[in-house]
């Protein structure tokens, strides 16, 4: 079992540890619902050091990344980040990642923990025409701490004595802390304003302890993977392996906007434009249960006796007190208000398509 540099810290904080893609990670410290609400109301601290981090540099680094992703990285200013799928030739989603552009010759990728090796090999294979290109997996040397919630900006500014106004959503920059370089990015996976901090693995515990110590009296708490999942689901941010895999294309999901056909050639383009022309047979929608019952990944979606799809994610939603989920459904039924059923333990329960996201933060970032 792999451990992040914060493993002992999680144990000290009484974290209930679970295995997640071979990493021992905290599921929760107090309770999933408490932690969820803490992030919505105050702020929460997450160890996301299990996520994979690659550094890519070289003269053709930018065109290389542009070639392997469906979104358009060329239009990004320096020190901006971009969410994008990585697709195969068939348009199937290999992973969904964040691309951080320092400048045209230096970029960083944050990839899903479970896809780290697969992505690295895939990227290496695609890189032959873009040499010389240096690709480094720095996951083990750089820790990643996520600081999320409406109070995160104020807390972070006060604790580290930085001004963070200039850092808009999806921007990032270098900062000096404790004589080391850290990178702060205004990104997250919760639907709240928030930051992700890249810090040398050797300094991770020190930074975590400082952030928690200085802000716990104002309501900052450590947050486990359980609440990370309910927070991202309410915000309708997809989870690889549940909502996406290599048999699913971005056009079928709710991240179709990340496919930029007008940017030139890229891997998967042909298959995706063919799919777009032919029409898409199934669509991902958000739904809520109108009967009692909690939808879970894999549960069948029915319209009367006809099987019309599958649940990809589902949960009790602590912020709305509803049972909500994402599912694939035949395109003709993918419209708001459409009623259908979810099969739960051999019984059918009513649900209906609703607008997404399920939860929208009232307070957006300061700027």
């Amino acid at each position, binding site marked *: 079992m792999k451990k992040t540099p914060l493993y002992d810290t999680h144990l000290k904080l009484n974290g209930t540890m679970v295995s997640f893609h071979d990493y021992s990670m905290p599921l929760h410290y107090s309770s*999933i*619902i408490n932690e969820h609400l803490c992030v919505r109301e105050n702020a929460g601290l997450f160890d996301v050091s299990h996520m994979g981090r690659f550094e890519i540099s070289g003269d053709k680094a930018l065109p290389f990344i542009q070639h392997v992703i469906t979104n358009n990285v060329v239009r990004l200013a320096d020190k901006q980040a971009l969410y994008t799928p990585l697709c195969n030739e068939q348009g199937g989603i290999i992973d969904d990642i964040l691309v951080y552009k320092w400048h045209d010759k230096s970029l960083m990728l944050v990839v899903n923990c479970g896809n780290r090796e697969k992505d690295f090999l895939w990227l290496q294979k695609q890189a032959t025409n873009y040499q010389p290109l240096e690709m480094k997996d720095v996951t083990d040397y750089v820790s990643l701490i996520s600081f999320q919630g409406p109070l995160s900006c104020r807390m972070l500014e006060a604790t580290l004595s930085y001004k963070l106004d200039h850092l808009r959503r999806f921007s990032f920059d270098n900062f000096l802390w404790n004589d080391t370089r850290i990178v702060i990015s205004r990104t997250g996976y919760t639907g709240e304003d928030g930051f992700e901090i890249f810090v040398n693995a050797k300094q991770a515990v020190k930074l975590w302890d400082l952030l928690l110590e200085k802000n716990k009296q104002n309501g900052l708490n450590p947050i486990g993977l*359980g609440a990370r999942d*309910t927070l991202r689901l309410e915000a309708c941010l997809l989870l690889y392996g549940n909502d996406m895999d290599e048999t699913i294309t971005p056009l079928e999901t709710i991240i179709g906007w990340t496919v930029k056909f007008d940017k030139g050639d890229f891997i998967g383009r042909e298959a995706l434009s063919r799919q777009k022309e032919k029409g898409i047979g199934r669509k991902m929608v958000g739904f809520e249960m109108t009967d009692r019952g*909690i939808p*879970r990944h894999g549960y069948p979606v029915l319209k009367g006796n006809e099987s019309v799809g599958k649940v990809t994610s589902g949960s*009790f939603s602590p912020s709305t007190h509803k049972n909500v989920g994402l599912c694939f459904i035949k395109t003709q039924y993918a419209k708001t208000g459409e009623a259908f059923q979810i099969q739960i*333990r051999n019984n059918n329960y009513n649900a209906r398509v609703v607008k997404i996201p399920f939860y929208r933060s009232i307070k957006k970032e300061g700027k």
Partner: protein
Amino acid sequence: MNIPNELFYTKTHEWAKKIGPREAVVGITDYAQKQLKDIVFVELPSIGKEVKMGAPCAVVESVKAAYDIYSPLSGKVTKINQKVQEEPQLVNEDPYGEGWFFHMEISDPNEFNKLLNPGQYETGAGFEH
């Protein structure tokens, strides 16, 4: 750990209370609710349903997952706790009181002898930490 004296227990963390010669109340233990945390859904058997000792009879769901609850005794369900279906957090708040699951008519009172007494439950249930 709260393990009331007057109850009978299973290794799978259910409790049964004898309230008549052939009648019992069933629920899950304090240990079980603590392990599950944040109970957000309870599915109870319908009234009249035949349940069997050791067989799944109800479902509780935490935020994270669904878990089967096994009947401590055999018999027929006579009454269910509607309130706990509407307010599942009652199982967390009061597992031996307001968080009860159902009443049942028991088919074989001798089955009580196969259940654990409080002492046996405390030492022998294999609490994992």
